[in-house]
């Protein structure tokens, strides 16, 4: 039924005749008869635009939209400024291919150059790439950057998001090297255990800040030890938290990675998201993926190009450090746009509101008899509570249109962003009280 062909069957027949063919089937004469399909595939009949829109709206309606989401664990419900939603839908940005032809792609290239600059500023690092698929693959790619023949073991803290650990494990399985998990203690990396696990074979140690449980790692305590062992430090960080917290650069990390979704991308059942990666000049040429560089054209005009391409798969083939080709360019532009829309003060304020509201909810929940916080350390916008009847609490909240904390080992993992008002949080506490009363 539906199609997007700017030609009529009669026109196509004439084109076939111009080629000396009588039917479209003749175009497939190189296909062996035994596998050339004779009938139509078992697909539904095509739909008109109106009908397909109805069908898709129906599917969307089968999801539940909560009025308030108090769950994070790797996907964060931040407010997306209107302009940040609108600009990436401009059709030139939206539909262009990778900017191989720099002369007619300056808009894409400059937006990425600006994104790279802002990621460097945020992380305190010197060089950023143009993005990878998500925060988990960013960590996996970073682990790949660090290992070599002499140092093949990657360490990761148990307090890193399980999705990230699993993706790292998969990438390292591909490469045939080992991933070892450093145990946690009171919701944070066990620094003593880490020190014992470091060896001359350790390539890198990856930790998350704030970690999966929302806790701030005492990073200064173990970074020096990792470096002393000759290994590299990978810091997986929340970009909103970077509005307030000490940056990877300030802490002396070698590679900063993270999930860029909080910077203007919707939850969208998991994607598209954005993996950001930044490092020091020393490791610039080991960064995977595209990197935009500034240069000049013949007339001396400022110009941007895809640079340092000789690192990449299309030139280095099997010797490339990564196979990445398509990335998340539009999401990178969105993140740059979000950071520009918030500005330095706005970003700090978002971070501060997340922090403050999460602490308000944590404190109020902890006042409810039977409820306590699982961990004692400083936290950002996520925290774990221990409470009885957790499933009933979640069900009651669900009934009120509130998505409560995520059940994890040891309790419920809550997340509060700037979107939650005090009234939302008070309502949440009231419902918890009612269930536990």
């Amino acid at each position: 039924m539906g199609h997007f062909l700017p030609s009529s069957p009669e026109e196509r027949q004439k084109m076939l005749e111009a080629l000396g063919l009588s039917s479209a089937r003749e175009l497939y004469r190189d296909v062996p008869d035994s596998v050339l399909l004779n009938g139509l595939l078992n697909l539904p009949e095509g739909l008109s635009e109106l009908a397909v829109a109805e069908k898709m709206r129906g599917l969307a309606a089968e999801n539940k939209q909560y009025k308030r989401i108090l769950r994070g664990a790797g996907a964060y419900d931040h407010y997306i400024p209107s302009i940040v939603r609108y600009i990436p839908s401009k059709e030139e940005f939206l539909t262009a291919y990778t900017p191989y032809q720099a002369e007619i792609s300056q808009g894409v290239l400059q937006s990425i150059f600006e994104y790279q600059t802002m990621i460097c500023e945020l992380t305190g690092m010197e060089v950023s790439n143009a993005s990878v698929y998500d925060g988990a693959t960013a960590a996996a790619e970073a682990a790949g950057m660090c290992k070599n023949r002499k140092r093949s073991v990657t360490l990761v803290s148990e307090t890193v998001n399980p999705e990230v650990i699993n993706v790292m494990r998969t990438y390292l399985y591909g490469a045939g090297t080992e991933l070892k998990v450093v145990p946690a203690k009171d919701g944070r990396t066990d620094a003593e255990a880490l020190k014992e696990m470091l060896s001359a074979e350790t390539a890198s140690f990856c930790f998350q800040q704030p970690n999966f449980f929302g806790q701030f790692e005492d990073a200064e305590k173990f970074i020096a030890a990792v470096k002393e062992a000759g290994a590299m430090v990978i810091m997986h960080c929340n970009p909103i938290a970077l509005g307030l917290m000490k940056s990877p650069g300030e802490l002396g990390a070698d590679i900063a990675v993270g999930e860029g979704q909080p910077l203007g991308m919707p939850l969208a059942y998991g994607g598209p998201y954005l993996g950001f990666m930044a490092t020091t000049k020393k490791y610039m040429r080991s960064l995977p993926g595209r990197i935009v560089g500034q240069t000049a054209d013949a007339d001396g005009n400022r110009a941007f190009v895809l640079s340092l391409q000789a690192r990449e798969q299309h030139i280095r083939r099997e010797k490339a450090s990564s196979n990445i080709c398509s990335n998340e360019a539009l999401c990178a532009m969105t993140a740059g746009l979000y950071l520009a829309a918030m500005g330095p003060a706005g970003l700090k304020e978002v971070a501060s509101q997340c922090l403050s509201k999460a602490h308000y909810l944590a404190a109020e929940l902890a006042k409810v008899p039977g409820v306590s916080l699982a961990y004692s350390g400083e936290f950002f916008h996520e925290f774990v509570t221990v409470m009885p009847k957790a499933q009933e609490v979640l069900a009651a909240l669900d009934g009120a249109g509130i998505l409560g904390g995520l059940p994890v080992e040891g309790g419920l993992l809550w997340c509060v962003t700037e979107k939650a008002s005090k009234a939302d949080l008070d309502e949440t506490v009231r419902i918890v009280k009612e269930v536990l009363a």
Partner: protein
Amino acid sequence: MKLIFERSKPGHALTILPPLDVERTALPAALLRESAPMLPELSETELSRHYTELNKQVYGVNDGFYPLGSCTMKYNPRVDEEMAALPGFTGIHPLAPKTATEGCRKVLELAASLLEEISGMDAMTFEPAAGAHGEFTGVLLIKQYHDARGDSARRKIIVPDSAHGTNPATAAMCGYEVINIASGEDGCVDLESLKAALGPDTAGLMLTNPNTVGLFDPNILEITRLVHEAGGLCYYDGANLNAIMGHVRPGDMGFDCVHMNLHKTFATPHGGGGPGAGAVGCKVFLAPYLPKSAMLDEPGHCQVRSFAGNFLVVVRALTYILTLGREGIPQASETAVLNANYLMKGLREIFTPAFDRLCMHEFVLDLSDYKKETGVSALDVAKGLIDFGIHPPTMYFPLIVHEALMLEPTETESRETLDEVAEIFRKVAELGREDPEYLHTAPHKAPIGRPDEVAAARSPILRA
């Protein structure tokens, strides 16, 4: 034009957030960053103008002919965008309870069943976020399969020399030794080279068919049979699937697993380089090795990306497939092939096709003779096309053709456009004979002239 940082003025800002309505929490000083990030300060109008100006310096699919070979730059339907922007999809947390995500899971299930039918596969994952990521996932299926059988001798992946760079890079990422085999004179797999490369150490073959010179390999059944006979598996790189949908299926050709670029074949936009989606399908015996999300599904499986992949890209692709349906899908492919052959016929008198025979959805021109005659290279011609409002074809790929220009018109171009394009190529070719210097320095009408890439690589400036 100005960088966003050069437009920044202290105190300019948008008003996004309400005042904080709870007590403000302070972090201990030891956790606080020492210096604030240098982010630009702009008002909303300034921000809007900046990005609008940037957007004007981008060539999109609707700006004109975009024959970027191997990239399938077809029209991206507006309704697909509208569906991907529905709050019922964008507002869904991936870790919301299953009862709250019925719709999302139905989208994935339905898209999987349709793509399984199109590719001839039995199972599907949407975790991979791009084509190369799909390749990685597919070769990991092969690796897990051999490992589970204790078949550790299989250390090599065979890749034709005409392949995309992602193929050998993928095999290397999976720990395999890459065996490059030469193509025959007809641009297809040379069966003798393949036989010589096969053995008890063969883990698998990575192949795209139609191949990168735009030809359907007529020996495909023999190729996959030989690989299987040697105990290897066959991976189908779906970069060129747009040629064959509804006409022949990778699964029927003997492939065991496949990736499909939803951002090529299924009309989702490229976003200036991404996001895409590289759905991977496989035969039932490989299904146990498909990746799964540790938190969304269950732990203990391989996993290549968090959660369910680039979900909104799947929403777009599903909208597209449901629109075309059982008749529209094969019609799209046959029209893509028709358009490519029609355009090749129009260009044959101007430049030399690398393989002058019936092609599939794309074809390659070899400008070696033209360069000898005029001194004008494929690069010069490509840049010259920009001045005529055309996006250049893919240049210098595949590597087995010198001075290559690779054209893929797709099905969403009209006969008039193809005729006009042939005329423009004729003009540019003549220009190269009359005034080669003009093409050496082209483009002349773009926002910038040719950038100095040597300077960019020698002294990298990678941030403002």
